[in-house]
């Protein structure tokens, strides 16, 4: 049987966003089945995100040629461009703390949460926790320790999804990364 039509002109560096969100969705569903406890699921998703972030940062640095960030505001811009590069979304950076060590990322839509509805018993599930992990892992590789967590989520009835990012400390060179 011959091939119908040629290859489409889709960019080989791009992948269908729906394949991505469906793949992630069934991963979350599977982990829920395996762990049963929602808090453990949140932790597992964060851990997987961390692993991704640790490897993702190399890709980011190689592609953007970016140097060291001078302050946390510059970090927030880089984070924003990374979201554009990898997930094709542009979160807004807002709500800076007075000391410039904490900011929020606002997503109009939750990029991973296409086709998702949280059942009642999963109310505490932080569905997109993998993003928080990825951010933490990526920044740890460039010697910035942060904490980040979701404070609003469209899946829980909020108008937008908000991820809060807090600078903890600069990791000194003498400590091997990932070694607590």
């Amino acid at each position, binding site marked *: 049987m011959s091939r119908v039509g040629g290859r489409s002109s*889709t960019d080989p560096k791009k992948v*269908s*966003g729906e394949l991505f969100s469906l*793949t992630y969705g069934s*991963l979350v569903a599977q982990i829920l089945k395996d762990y049963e406890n929602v808090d453990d699921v949140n932790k597992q998703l964060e851990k997987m995100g961390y692993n991704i972030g640790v*490897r*993702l940062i190399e890709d980011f640095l190689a592609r953007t040629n970016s140097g060291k960030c001078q302050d946390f505001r510059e970090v927030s811009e880089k984070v924003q461009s990374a979201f554009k590069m*990898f997930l094709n979304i542009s979160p807004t950076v807002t709500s800076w703390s007075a000391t410039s060590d904490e900011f929020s990322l606002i997503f109009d839509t939750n990029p991973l949460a296409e086709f*998702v509805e949280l059942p009642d018993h999963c109310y505490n599930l932080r569905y997109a926790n993998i993003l928080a992990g990825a951010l933490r892992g990526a920044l740890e590789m460039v010697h910035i320790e942060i904490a980040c967590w979701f404070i609003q989520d469209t899946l829980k*009835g909020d108008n937008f999804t908000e991820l809060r990012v807090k600078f903890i400390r600069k990791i000194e060179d003498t400590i091997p990364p990932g070694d607590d």
Partner: protein
Amino acid sequence: MNITNSNPVIRPKTSILDKSLSRGKQEVSSSAFALLFSEIVQYYQSRSSTVSELQNHLHAHGWEIGARCLDLILIRDRPSAKREIKLLNVLLTVKSTLWKALFGKEADKLEHANDDEKTYYIIESEPLLNRYISVPKDKGSLNCASFAAGIIEAVLDGCNFPAKVSAHWHKGTTFMVKFQDHVIARDKLID
């Protein structure tokens, strides 16, 4: 936070069913997908002791995706939402519509086995799922495209053409589709 079942859950004002399906052109970077997929493979690897167990996990994961994709492509890409009732047309839908929706291109080839009327092959020389995977020597038969095999199987099951789909290393990656006997028998009746 202390949420029990007696507390009313705040639901979004519009339910998920109220949203339109029209979007779908959104794309993400292949690195993001590759890293996510790699985490998935590692997650299942840590929970399986044999290669076939790992493949079964991936297959089942793909199945969940395929079951949802079927609804999606029927509603979006086939506005008449007409179901295929001919076996060949169903396979062509998988090869073109489904593959395009998921991987941005058609599958390379669709072949019918010479010696067995219920076996078909969908051939994909460079499957996305295997692009970044290097198979360790001690797990030679591992094929992460089992994931895609699961997707195909779910779509065929959903169309009421139950089949077993498995991934093999042959001319790139080949998905072997083995229909159940009654499917072939039924198909002959429609001619």
